[in-house]
């Protein structure tokens, strides 16, 4: 009896690897070959990695999503993030704070003044002594120039504004300037965090998004964890979310204690991940599952 069950086990053990192999090579073999065309404009979703990048070739997260999710992003009308973009445009022109100014009082037309901004964020700020993200830059403007109250990191108004400003850079390649200030140090700190195992599951970012992108992690198709589409409309969230919200979600999933949104750790991680996607087109606001 014992021998019989043992042989059964052996039989199964032999069968399983072949099954797993055929699955990974046929159904879920890395990114697909679809092309992202938004309102007639082709947006490149992959690019050759710059020298020193740990990844051989960069793919936008869009290439790992289902056709239905991809279609949502390919049409600005169906992209649910665009209600927030509309709100962002309204806020851009709304006077707020003691100085009686709106964003447009100084920056005029966002389509001109904000083009390319999202592509180079986070960027070094001398006055702050650390890198500015979209969120901290907007709040600095609000407090110093407008005399308005700052927005919370994940406030609807903040997300609407980052989406609206980010949209003006859509299609432009991500290009961080690491030469400025101490950006390189922040990048290296982010790289350390990226490769450090944390949490009960003892995983680092790189364990999933480094060598294993394209594979399935339970029901989810692993992407490279690129940040070129943020703020992103996630179907799971039913709304927009910031890069730091995504970081936090990942850390929750690996049973780690997440850092706070806007913390130095997350800013460093944002610098590193943004630079890791150097050359990918900005897709803000993107749609993911």
């Amino acid at each position, binding site marked *: 009896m014992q021998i019989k069950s043992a042989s059964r086990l052996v039989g199964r053990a032999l069968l399983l690897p072949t099954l797993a192999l055929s699955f990974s090579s046929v159904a879920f073999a890395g990114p697909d070959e679809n092309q992202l065309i938004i309102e007639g404009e082709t947006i490149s979703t992959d690019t050759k990695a710059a020298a020193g990048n740990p990844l051989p070739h960069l793919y936008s997260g869009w290439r790992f999503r289902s056709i239905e999710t991809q279609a949502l992003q390919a049409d600005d*009308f*169906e992209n649910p993030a*665009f*209600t927030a973009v*509309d*709100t962002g445009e*309204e806020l851009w022109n709304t006077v707020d704070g003691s100085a009686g100014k709106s964003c447009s009082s100084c920056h005029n037309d966002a389509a001109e003044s904000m083009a390319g901004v999202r592509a180079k964020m986070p960027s070094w700020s001398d006055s702050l002594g650390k890198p500015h993200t979209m969120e901290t830059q907007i709040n600095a403007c609000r407090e110093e120039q407008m005399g308005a109250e700052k927005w919370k990191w994940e406030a609807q108004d903040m997300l*609407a504004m980052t989406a609206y400003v980010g949209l003006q850079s859509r299609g432009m390649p991500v290009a961080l300037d690491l030469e400025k200030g101490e950006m390189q140090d922040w990048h290296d700190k982010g790289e350390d965090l990226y490769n450090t195992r944390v949490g009960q599951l003892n995983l680092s970012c790189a364990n999933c998004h480094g060598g294993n992108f394209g594979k399935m992690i339970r029901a989810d198709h692993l992407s490279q964890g690129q940040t070129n589409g943020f703020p992103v409309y996630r179907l799971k969230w039913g709304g927009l979310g910031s890069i730091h919200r995504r970081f936090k979600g990942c850390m929750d999933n690996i049973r780690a204690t997440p850092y706070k949104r806007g913390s130095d750790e997350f800013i460093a991680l944002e610098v590193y991940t943004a630079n890791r996607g150097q050359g990918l087109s900005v897709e803000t606001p993107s749609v993911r599952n």
Partner: protein
Amino acid sequence: MAKIKPRVKVPKTASAGDVITIKTLIKHKMESGQRKDKEGKVIPRKIINHFKVDFAGKTVFEAQIQPGTSANPFLSFSVKVQESGEFHFTWTDDDGSVYEAKKSIAVS
């Protein structure tokens, strides 16, 4: 955001006899009237209850919308076009306000 703003997407051109797809979306909270606030008082119903599309003086699409429709209602429908003209979209709110949008199409 309080501002209610409709968006419509109509192809700019079409051939006579073509069946075109029109997409419409209006930013609206669609408060169902079923919810209660912190004090337990019913939040009054405020939804878009009627949607109508006219083309060359003729109604080509009309819908009565009920509570239970999600926020920012998205309506998409097909129309067969024979001649150039202007689509006239109207959304009617519970409080009587009417939101409008116009979009023309060139048919060859």
